[in-house]
């Protein structure tokens, strides 16, 4: 069975999604255990796959038994396997942590909710392991559609925000499809390794250049890089609490992975980094995006929306890190995928806890939370320190790699943007911590239905604390991660 891990990763959640649909019509209480078991099995398979890759370097799985380029194959190498473990781990932890709020929000639609959840995870895992460009598009659309539906059920202006997300997401995916079409026209193949073999002869062709630009534009729209970021704050801020911890850490990071895959493995570095001016232009765009996101974050007065702007800035880190075109920068970008997913999960879970207990996330309503919700706020502080970049949390190490790569490449604008955003994060997070710590909780005896500021239920707190501890553990083991995995994920041509 272990040689079928790549297929099991997709088949198990797909089957479980169907089981959950059937179970949802007959007995709602079966939905959560089925989802839990299936995600645990998927996590086990993905860790097993990582072990296989560590010993064998590349695992190839032929679906349908056909050899590439005639059939669809999975190519799992170092870059894939670590992102896959990340996706499945985040999905599992979020499932456990948000069980109670899901039952509260959708009491009569538990079956469809968990079906959409599992299909979303299927789509993302498939995007990460596939080696076929068109298959990536189909899986992208599965995860996008389920994401639209999951976000659309939030409060307030969620349907409108989700509809805008539909429009932007469809434009992005269509551009990606168009880019693949241009590539197919001149290479005749859809398999990524095959295309990479045929392309070097065609580097001078205008078609390849336009295909690259269109593909990249589509991916930038889907990962909310400035100036295409307008859909993200509304969509994530209004989404239901059980959903934001799944979609926010994962969607943008998997899109960054796809960008890495296309830039480094399909169009080889000789093409992508050929012109130093283009590299600088991309780094400037990323730096500008970081600065704009940080400035917009400064004007926010509500916790969840503020965090979405932090998310947009993090995307800028990763894109800029890739286009620094040196080993330190790309190491920083890949390390930041892992770290940022963990940090985002932790901070959004903490914000979810706070929102659930306080019913409002405006900064003024966060007074005195440290006394009432010590564990959640402690995890929030750890995640905040990681986003700011304080050792020994993981965020420090990825920033270190990014800054050293930027200095090595001479991109001082990027260094300045990184430092500026760290400064803004310091200001804002410490303001929140100050409000939560020092301001006294007002006693309002005469206000009738007062918000009871108790700690969140045990299940939510335990998962949250586990993720916060994981941030520190990831930071301590950075060296191992970099030397054993990330170092081999970068092609050799890069210095």
């Amino acid at each position: 069975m272990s040689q079928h891990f790549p297929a099991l990763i997709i088949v198990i959640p797909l089957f479980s999604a169907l089981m959950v649909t059937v179970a949802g019509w007959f007995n709602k209480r079966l939905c959560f255990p089925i989802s839990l078991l299936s995600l645990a099995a998927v996590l086990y398979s993905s860790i097993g796959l990582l072990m296989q890759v560590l010993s064998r370097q590349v695992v190839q799985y032929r679906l349908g038994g056909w050899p590439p380029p005639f059939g669809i194959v999975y190519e799992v190498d170092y870059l894939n396997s670590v992102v896959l473990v990340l996706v499945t781990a985040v999905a599992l932890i979020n499932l456990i942590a948000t069980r109670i709020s899901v039952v509260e929000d959708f009491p009569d639609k538990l079956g469809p909710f968990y079906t959409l959840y599992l299909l979303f995870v299927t789509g993302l895992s498939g995007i990460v392991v596939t080696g076929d460009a068109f298959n990536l598009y189909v899986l992208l659309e599965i995860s996008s559609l389920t994401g639209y539906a999951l976000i659309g059920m939030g409060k307030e202006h969620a349907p409108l925000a989700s509809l805008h997300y539909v429009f932007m997401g469809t434009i992005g995916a269509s551009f990606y499809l168009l880019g693949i079409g241009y590539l197919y026209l001149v290479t005749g193949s859809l398999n990524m390794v095959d295309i990479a073999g045929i392309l070097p002869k065609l580097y001078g062709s205008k078609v390849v250049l336009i295909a690259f630009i269109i593909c990249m534009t589509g991916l930038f729209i889907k990962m909310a890089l400035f100036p295409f970021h307008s859909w993200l704050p509304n969509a994530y801020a209004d989404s239901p609490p059980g959903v934001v911890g799944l979609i926010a850490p994962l969607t943008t990071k998997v899109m960054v992975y796809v960008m890495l895959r296309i830039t480094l493995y399909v169009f080889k570095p000789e093409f992508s980094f050929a012109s130093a001016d283009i590299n600088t232009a991309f780094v400037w765009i990323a730096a500008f995006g970081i600065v704009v996101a940080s400035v917009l974050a400064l004007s926010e007065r509500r916790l969840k929306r503020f965090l979405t702007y932090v998310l947009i800035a993090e995307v800028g880190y990763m894109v800029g890190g890739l286009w620094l075109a040196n080993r330190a920068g790309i190491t920083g970008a890949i390390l930041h995928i892992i770290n940022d997913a963990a940090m985002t999960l932790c901070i959004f879970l903490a914000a979810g806890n706070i929102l659930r207990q306080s019913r409002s996330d405006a900064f003024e309503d966060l007074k005195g939370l440290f006394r009432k919700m010590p564990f959640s706020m402690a995890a929030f502080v750890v995640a905040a320190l990681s986003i700011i970049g304080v050792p020994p949390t993981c965020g420090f190490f990825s920033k270190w790699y990014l800054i050293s790569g930027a200095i090595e490449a001479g991109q001082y604008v990027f260094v300045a943007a990184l430092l500026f955003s760290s400064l803004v994060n310091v200001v804002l997070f410490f303001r929140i911590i100050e409000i939560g710590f020092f301001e006294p909780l007002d006693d309002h005896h005469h206000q009738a239905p007062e918000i009871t500021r108790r700690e969140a239920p045990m299940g939510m707190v335990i998962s949250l604390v586990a993720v916060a501890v994981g941030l520190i553990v990831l930071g301590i083991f950075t060296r191992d991660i970099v030397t054993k995995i990330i170092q081999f994920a970068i092609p050799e041509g890069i210095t």
Partner: protein
Amino acid sequence: MDTLISIIVSKYNYWIYICLMMIGLYAMIVKNNLVKKIIGMNILQTSIILFYVSIGAKKGATLPIITHGHNGESHAVHAVDFINPLPHVLMLTAIVVAVATLGVALALALRVYSQYQTLEEDEIYSQIEMSRKK
């Protein structure tokens, strides 16, 4: 002049599909009504489907169905007689994806309508502004 005509004759189908794509994209960006934006999205996706299908055309070739059946194994099949089947296969998938996206977008538009009682974006934004001021 000759090269210009030969370029136009050999590529005008792609230009037409790019025009269609741009019409769809323009509708999505500019129009105020949400249903018109959804229609623009559909135009964009459909024009990409047409683009792909036209990649598979071949001069003097016929449908990719082998009409002599599978009882004569000695019958040799030449690839040059049949058009390229792969873009058709890919676009069967893309059509289904476009329909699914249309379904979800319409469901979301229905939810927006039941919340704001209008489908015009400027009216929705003014409603949001007024509720924010309160």
